[in-house]
């Protein structure tokens, strides 16, 4: 058996072929990991209004940064416990904001995809409670810039309340909002939407254009260069 194997191994071309096939499989897997455009088929309906239109997705409770009438809206589906969402928030998002949001070309919205663990939903609800006080993005940054290990308790209800208190939010109102699970349904709806779109991981993104064309979907902590290319192609 061993002799046969190594007679084959002596032939570099065969070995190279096997390696090339394995690399090709990985490359194809990587291509599949990006679900750009393909997931949209799952949400196609006969309705005259697309379920993924701006008006359907961006409601009064949806945190939005930038000009609401910007030609492009980037919707992030994120989890405050997800390390790659943290990477996007700390590394990529600031670059998008300075290059595209401040100039009014792109707006950024946030939807909840709480999948990492038990504290993910309370963190999502807490951010919406901060949104009630006009402090969603500040709370969002506070969590992502001080992110702890997954499911280690850093995002439990007590710590979320402490974070809100440190940020100067109205603690009575915030605590009451969080304790009453005011935004449980909203978070559930966001989660169900993400499942409906067939997002498989966090962060995931929908890129909507206000010309009504088909939205683009991405899953992964893509770097600025990726978003830059997509935005520039869409804007041109």
């Amino acid at each position, binding site marked *: 058996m061993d002799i046969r194997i190594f007679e084959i191994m*002596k032939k*570099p071309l065969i070995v*190279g072929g096997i390696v090339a096939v394995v690399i090709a499989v990985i490359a194809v897997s990587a291509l599949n990991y*990006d679900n750009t455009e393909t997931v949209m088929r799952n949400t196609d309906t006969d309705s005259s209004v697309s379920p993924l239109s701006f008006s359907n997705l961006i409601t009064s409770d949806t945190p939005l940064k930038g000009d609401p009438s910007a030609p492009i809206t980037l919707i992030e589906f994120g989890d405050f416990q997800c390390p790659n969402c943290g990477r996007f928030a700390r590394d990529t998002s600031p670059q998008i904001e300075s290059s595209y949001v401040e100039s009014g070309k792109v707006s950024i919205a946030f939807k909840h995809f709480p*999948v*990492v663990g038990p504290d993910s939903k309370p963190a999502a609800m807490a951010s919406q409670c901060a949104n009630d006080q006009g402090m969603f993005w500040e709370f969002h940054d506070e969590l992502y810039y001080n992110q702890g*290990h*997954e499911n280690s308790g850093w995002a439990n209800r007590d710590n979320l309340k402490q974070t809100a208190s440190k940020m100067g939010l109205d603690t009575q109102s915030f605590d009451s909002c969080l304790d009453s699970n005011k935004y449980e349904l909203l978070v559930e709806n966001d989660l169900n939407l993400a499942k409906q779109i067939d997002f498989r991981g966090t*962060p995931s993104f929908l890129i909507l254009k206000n010309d009504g064309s088909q939205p683009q979907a991405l899953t992964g902590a893509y770097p600025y260069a*990726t978003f830059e290319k997509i935005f520039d192609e869409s804007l041109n």
Partner: protein
Amino acid sequence: MINMLSSFKQVFSDKLYVFLAVSVFTLFWITFNVLGELLFFTPVFVFYLPSDALSVFMLSDAISALMAIVLSMNVYVIKNTKVKMNKSSFMGSSVGMMAGGCASCSSMGFVLLTSFGTAGVAVSTFLSNYQIPLLVGSVGMLLWAYYSLHKKLTKSCILN
């Protein structure tokens, strides 16, 4: 140290093993960086290295290199002797693959939860939270595997 390199030179004087090692390194480098969300093929081919990923990137590079060397040396040893594959290479490679490959496990929480239930989430949390110690442990095991292979190559009779 010079003595430790003698077995390395002995194996990699044959171009077949150089080719095998380069292929294995490339394969694992791509795998680790795709799973770590540092290397993307679409919609733009891009590699980027944010500061929070630096330590994992360096450790997974070391693991890829060590796996390439150790695997090639294992093939050499098996081919030229009747000795079985080194256990520490297998352990080191397995731990390295799990820890290096699970950099983004938690991001796949929904898939893990639906596929494997809470056990899947617990395993991914463990692998993600202890990723760096696991990677360091994997480097240690692979270095031990190299040392074991070196001893086999220098102490046993090799039919070359």
